[in-house]
């Protein structure tokens, strides 16, 4: 019954490593997002895909590469991890991106807490 799921929930790794976080939604939504939440709880969008196409790419280091194999999945790969990458990463999805209210509501996953040592 999980709407938006992420794996893993916790990820502890060494600096310089490469890691991936996976996200899946079973809501039939067209749009998916990745957010980063820092230690002060600030939520900032990183990427968004609509029907497997990248539509939002905020100022994020190119060590971060999202991939959407289909519209139900949006994975995040991070190369050469740095200490500053430690944060909670949230995946979210929405029905669409139009101005309709039903399209704007974003459903969030449980988050992946990444700790870089």
């Amino acid at each position, binding site marked *: 019954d999980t709407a*938006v799921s992420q794996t893993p929930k916790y990820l502890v790794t060494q600096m310089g490593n490469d890691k991936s976080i996976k996200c899946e939604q079973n809501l039939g939504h067209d*749009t998916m*997002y990745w957010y980063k939440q820092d230690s*002060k*709880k*600030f*939520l*900032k*969008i990183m990427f*968004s895909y*609509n029907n497997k196409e990248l*539509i*939002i790419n905020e100022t994020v280091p190119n060590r971060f590469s999202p991939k959407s194999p289909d519209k139900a999945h949006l994975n995040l790969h991070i190369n050469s991890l740095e200490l500053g990458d430690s944060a909670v990463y*949230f995946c*979210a999805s*929405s029905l*669409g*991106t*139009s*101005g309709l*209210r039903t*399209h*704007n*509501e*974003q*459903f*969030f*996953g*449980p*988050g992946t807490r990444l700790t870089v040592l």
Partner: protein
Amino acid sequence: GESVGLHLPTLSVQEGDNSIINCAYSNSASDYFIWYKQESGKGPQFIIDIRSNMDKRQGQRVTVLLNKTVKHLSLQIAATQPGDSAVYFCAEKNRGSTLGRLYFGRGTQLTVWP
């Protein structure tokens, strides 16, 4: 640039009291606003939304008020319960944006004590 901020980073209320969480925004082009609740260890969860052509919207125990003149948004929770303890975020979307981009405020930690 746009900014969505909160007046108070923390709010403590007694169970049964009403809570008011405030949010200021600076972009007059914002036409849609959402309040999210984030419990510890979980992702943000939708509470209530409001369009810029409205100034008030009510849900179950929650009311959102929008004052476009001063670019201010508030979330009122009636008869606050311990289960309401969480971080509350306001988020805004810009008029005409078809990208679904939401700008989130800093969050307010609401603590409800018995």
